[in-house]
């Protein structure tokens, strides 16, 4: 089913999408999208929504099982409080991706902005995974409480840009970040440390990256063909002593 979004106000577009989902559509293709907010928000059926154009902010917020494929660049706040399902962006994306995300996957082919993966969390089988194929801005994994962030630094439009920004992992107290190649330790926050991957980590990472490569038709061998490092928080309560020392 196709919906032409040319000039459509975001509310009207989202009503059409919801009607299509309620009507049993399995594949919905949106054409001429430009800037409409909240596309695919809260959709809890396993439909696939393909977006042609640049979707507006808060794409796939509260997403609960659907798949959204963006053929162009994305904007800010993708996958806000996402629960399950998948968002695939074939370009770059903006700031605050995966905010409070608690399940599902977000795959961005190219660069991502500031505060990506902020406050991601996980519980039992609910484990969100966010992969950026390009480079990242500052505050990557800020206040991260759970889940998996992966930064490849491979597919960027800006060869001069650093792979990641400053204040990496600020306030991180759970979850794990994998980075292809090395990290710039001067840019890491005090709350995190760099570790080598265990065999279990390797197996888990390979599974995530195979899925990523499948979505973008990339050569998995090339993507996995460098060492990775693991970033973990040093403490589960980094600010426990900020105001008064905790009793031991």
């Amino acid at each position, binding site marked *: 089913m196709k919906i032409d979004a040319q000039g459509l106000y*975001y509310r009207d577009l989202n009503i059409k999408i919801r009607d299509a989902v309620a009507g049993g559509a399995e594949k919905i293709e949106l054409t001429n999208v*430009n*800037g409409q907010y909240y596309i695919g928000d809260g959709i809890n059926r396993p439909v696939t929504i393909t977006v042609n*154009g640049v979707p507006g902010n808060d794409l796939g917020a509260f997403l609960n099982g659907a798949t959204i494929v963006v053929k162009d660049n994305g*904007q800010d706040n993708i996958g806000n409080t996402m629960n399950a399902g998948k968002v695939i962006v074939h370009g770059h994306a*903006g*700031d605050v991706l995966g905010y409070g995300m608690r399940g599902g996957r977000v795959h961005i082919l190219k660069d991502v902005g500031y505060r990506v993966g902020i406050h991601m969390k996980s519980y039992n089988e609910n484990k969100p995974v966010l992969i950026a194929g390009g480079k990242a*801005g500052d505050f990557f994994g800020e206040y991260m409480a759970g889940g998996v962030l992966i930064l490849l630094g491979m597919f960027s439009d800006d060869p001069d840009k650093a792979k990641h920004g400053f*204040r990496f992992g600020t306030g991180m107290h759970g979850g794990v970040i994998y980075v292809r190649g090395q990290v710039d330790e001067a840019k890491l926050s005090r709350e995190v440390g760099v570790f080598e991957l265990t065999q279990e980590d390797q197996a888990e990472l390979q599974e995530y990256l195979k899925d990523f490569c499948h979505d973008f038709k990339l050569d998995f061998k090339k993507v996995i063909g460098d060492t990775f490092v693991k970033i973990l928080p040093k403490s589960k309560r980094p600010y426990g002593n900020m105001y008064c020392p905790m009793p031991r």
Partner: protein
Amino acid sequence: MKNIKPTHSFQKDISNCGLTGFISKSGKLVEGSVIIKSISLMHDRGNGLGGGFAAYGIYPAYKEFFAFHLMYENGPALQLTEEYLEQNFHIEQEEDIPTRRTPAIANPPVFKRYFVKPLETVEYKEAVEFKNMTDEDVVVHHVMRINNEIEGAFVVSSGKNMGAFKGVGYPEEIAEFFRLDEYKGYIWTAHNRFPTNTPGWWGGAHPFTLLDWSIVHNGEISSYGINKRYLEMYGYLCTMLTDTEVVAYMLDLLIRKHGLTPELASLALAAPFWDMIDTLPEEERKLLTAIRQVYGCALLNGPFAILFASNEGLIGLNDRVKLRPLVCAEKDDFVYMASEEAAIREICSAPDRVWTPRGGEPVITKLNKGVV
């Protein structure tokens, strides 16, 4: 004339505004409909309490004269201001700013424009010969006096070959009201306002201007108090009840008066953190330390994305930790800057390059030599 306006206590402006702008580096004139299309896409970033535009290259016939856009809330303000202008300026041309009645704009103030040059009065000769003031300094002085001393009169803009058009309404409504589709310029900026803690009034809409500086801003300048007091020491008086005003005056002080480059001025407004400065090579570390020491009171704290334009070009700047969005794009000799990529793609569907600047990293685009 005595000062009868309240020296207000500042309230914070927490806002979710939208901004957009572009420049043709070679000076190609672009119709107002283009910027209107771009800002209209971000309609929902504002709430109808402020919209505005700045346009450069719109008055080529009077480009040697300062173009004063005046807003009058009442008849006596108009009369007093015109008397004041006649005493101090040669007025080459004066006219109503053309407007169109539109249902969205219920009670607009009166708008007039004057193309002027300072008159060689006794006061002017004194200023130039003994106070080392330039024509620009004299104009700034008069703008401050009108804004501060004539109740109900506000200088909306005062630069050469440029103008600001702003008011209460969504930007597309303000554009309709001011007939912006009838203007052509080589730099345009636009703003969609969402004020929460300062009044949504005609003078409080963006852009804020002084001479040919114009600023549109998304965010909240929590250092307003210290910035305002610092500017007062140099004769700048804040009268518009909104934080963004300080940015316009600060740039005038830093760049025009103190001779800083736009790059250095940006580093004063969004200075790197001390721990970052400490990691830099010796020369850079010394420079940035000096800037933070000398211009501590010019530092803008709080989240912001701003576009500032002048007859030199267009500059985009984020706060140091990028708490507001700013996206840039290039296509041929055009550079675009906006809160959302979609606002750029709406008027330039296939840019050569799209990128997001780092926090505190100014994006500086200058008009080619000879355009102005």
